[in-house]
């Protein structure tokens, strides 16, 4: 498969929403289990890092530490929920449950199925962000109502991480091998993307790497502008980066999965 087939625009129909709906129905059936983690996660981060470490750090660039990390908690939730849904979750549906095989025996095409999975990953990011927004608002660590603007960004950011995840899923030889991108890419990113301390503290090379290779850097930067109500023109650059990378990754993810599943 050459580059032009990998980057060819896939034909996706509105039937992709049937796949999205299937995942939503399953999610809603066990909603208690599914809504609990983001609640707890927001509390834990705020208490341990915000209040705990915050006692010593006090503030960063004039912002109370707990307020500084609040957008990072949201951004990491966007990343984790979409990424893990479209790696382990999608892999289980594809490989163990043979769900994609069952779906493509209907008018759904493999492009529809993968597009539905990506939309679902993005939806999960939005739902987690919504729940965490409630918790963070209770703690009064973000500026309202401008912070609500993180929701649409969570949707596109979720789509980006879902597509990134699906690219890994499309080439992984086994479910265990999915641990590599998780530990070598996702975990470092959650620490070194301007999340818990400013990138400027590190040698400049770290900043360059984070800005070019870590999608999370851009999400955190945008979220922080909203939750601290400190807008800057650089948001345009961050949004452009996210939009272009999301578009490319979505196309790649669908074409790579087609290559894996249609033989």
């Amino acid at each position, binding site marked *: 498969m050459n580059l032009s087939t990998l980057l060819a625009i896939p034909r996706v129909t509105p039937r992709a929403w049937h796949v999205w709906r299937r995942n939503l129905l399953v999610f809603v059936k066990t909603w208690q289990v599914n809504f609990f983690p983001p609640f707890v996660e927001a509390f834990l981060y705020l208490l341990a890092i915000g209040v705990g470490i915050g006692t010593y750090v006090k503030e960063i660039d004039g912002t109370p530490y707990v307020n500084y990390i609040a957008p990072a908690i949201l951004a990491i939730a966007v990343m984790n929920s979409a990424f893990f849904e479209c790696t382990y979750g999608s892999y289980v549906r594809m490989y163990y*449950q043979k769900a994609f095989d069952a779906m493509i025996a209907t008018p759904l095409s493999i492009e529809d199925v993968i597009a539905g999975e990506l939309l679902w990953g993005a939806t999960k990011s939005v739902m987690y962000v919504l729940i965490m927004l409630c918790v963070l608002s209770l703690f009064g660590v973000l500026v309202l109502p401008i912070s609500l603007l993180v929701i649409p960004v969570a949707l596109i950011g979720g789509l980006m991480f879902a597509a990134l995840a699906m690219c890994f899923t499309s080439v992984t030889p086994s479910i265990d091998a999915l641990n590599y991108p998780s530990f070598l890419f996702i975990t470092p990113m959650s620490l070194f993307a301007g999340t818990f301390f400013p990138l400027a503290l590190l040698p400049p090379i770290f900043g360059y790497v984070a800005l070019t290779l870590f999608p999370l850097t851009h999400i955190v930067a945008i979220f922080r502008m909203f939750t601290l109500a400190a807008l800057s023109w650089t948001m345009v650059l961050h949004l452009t980066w996210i939009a272009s990378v999301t578009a490319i990754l979505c196309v790649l993810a669908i074409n790579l999965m087609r290559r894996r599943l249609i033989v």
Partner: protein
Amino acid sequence: MISAQNLTKSYGTFTAVDGVSFSVRKGEIFGFLGPNGAGKTTTMKMIQCVSPRSGGTLSVFDLDPDEHPAEIKRRIGVVPQETNLDPDFTCEGNLLTYARYFDISAPLARRRTDDLLAFVQLLEKRNVAIEKLSGGMKRRLILARALVNSPELLILDEPTIGLDPQARHLVWERLKALQAQGSTIVLTTHYLDEAARLCDRLVIMDNGRILEEGAPPDLVRRHAGEEIVEVDKTDTVITCLKGMDVPFEVAGDAVLVSTDRAHEIARILLERCRPRKMLTRPATLEDVFLKLTGRRLRD
């Protein structure tokens, strides 16, 4: 319904389906027989529009699977070899969810679900999780799922694999009922009694090629004669048969003679060759199958 000319599928240097031609007529039950690895499932996948062909022509409902996959798939029902029911839903949920993939409206889907659960005798299992079903129930539910779009063409890949005799008979009876309602059915199997019982016409495949095609009784007559004389293999019997100039085949510890004059041969054997054990029986599709595809183990 389906017509294939010189249909080919290759994976790299391996040719799974090697230029097969066949056509399936409306309203018939058409079988694909063959040992493991013969290319039956690959052929099914090309018909189902989930695996693009490498060569030849193929049309389903006079449409090209490469050009109109969604239109074709909307009109076919598929029972796959592997059980791929959705474990996150109940029996009913599986049918309702699957109906949605066909853009079937919710009220119609509910009506069909009721009818189909009754059709495969699973009404009382409506709200049961998939993992709680027996193997036979799962296969029946998959059959119901394949019918959720009222397909004109039903494709079944090893429909009764792993089923107990009761469940197999139920599935056969249901397939006959569907045929009576006007459905066209294509199935693969390596149960020869199943093929003989169900299929109006069938092809026998091996190594990606079609070896024979015809109605089961014709195939039996053509390749295995009317009857088979089966004798225990001993040197005397073999020398004897050679002396009589009768063609025979050795299978394990038995010697098989296909013939139209079974009585005569049996009598001569009894009189001259002192067989330990002997029987005569009508020839079956199994005799044809083993004759054409050999007795070598596959896989």
